[in-house]
């Protein structure tokens, strides 16, 4: 029989990694892509230049590394925990992204925008608190 405390501990460790690394990864990607500039899809001649800018951006590589760490933690936790249990954690990550965007990147966030983020977090939390299985196993 597996230790329940041990299972909880490794679950919380993985959730913490997910909640820290996913927002940081997204913020770094956002910063990197802002430096690259707007991607113009209808100008294929600019594509090699854009790809070289993306591939030489330290922010983007660091963002990808952080998202990979998040992805490995996500893969591992899904091997023992329910998808619907893992979901609420991402609601915290959404708030962390907005806070980092505001304080670190200096993005302007209107009160309506903040209210929307709050309602999304609440919605994700409600979704995550529903039973993991609602359909009978055949």
């Amino acid at each position, binding site marked *: 029989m597996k230790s329940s405390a041990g299972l909880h501990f*490794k679950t919380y460790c993985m959730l913490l990694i997910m909640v820290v690394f996913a*927002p940081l990864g*997204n*913020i770094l*990607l*956002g*910063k990197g*892509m*802002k430096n*690259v*500039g*707007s*991607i113009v*899809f209808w100008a294929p001649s600019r594509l090699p230049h854009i790809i070289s800018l*993306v591939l030489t951006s330290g922010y*983007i590589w660091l963002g990808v590394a952080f*998202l990979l760490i998040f992805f*490995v933690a996500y*893969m*591992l936790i*899904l*091997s*023992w925990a329910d*998808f619907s249990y893992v*979901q609420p954690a*991402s*609601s915290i990550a*959404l708030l962390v*992204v*907005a806070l*980092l*965007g*505001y304080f670190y*990147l200096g*993005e302007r*966030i*209107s*009160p*309506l*925008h*903040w*209210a*929307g*983020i*709050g*309602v*999304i*977090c*609440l*919605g*994700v*939390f*409600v*979704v*995550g*608190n*529903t*039973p993991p299985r*609602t*359909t009978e196993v055949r």
Partner: protein
Amino acid sequence: MREAILLFLVVASGTGGEICVTRAMKHVGEVTDFRPLALARFIFQAMKVPWMWIGVSMMALAFFSLLAVLSIENVSFVVPVTALNYAAGALGGKFFLGERVTPRRWTGVLLVCLGVTLVWLGKR
């Protein structure tokens, strides 16, 4: 319009990818050994499941769409909007997998959609 198409790709492809990866991970089984060699062996086992490749390909498409949309929009706008994948997950579960989605889960999905609408309106 351009950001709406890219956000659609991020949400649809990302959700499809997550469902495929979940299926692959459940197929491989629970991780009990966290030593680097055992983890590498586990990831190698997961890579042998076709669902993992389909899932990773879809997640890659979602990732490149995310990069593109981040070049034109703020991260504090883009990431909350991607929460629409909960709505996509519920709709996909109901219509493609035949799952019974509880009223409480629909309430959560509606709250996410309402929140995304507020974020979208708050941007302007």
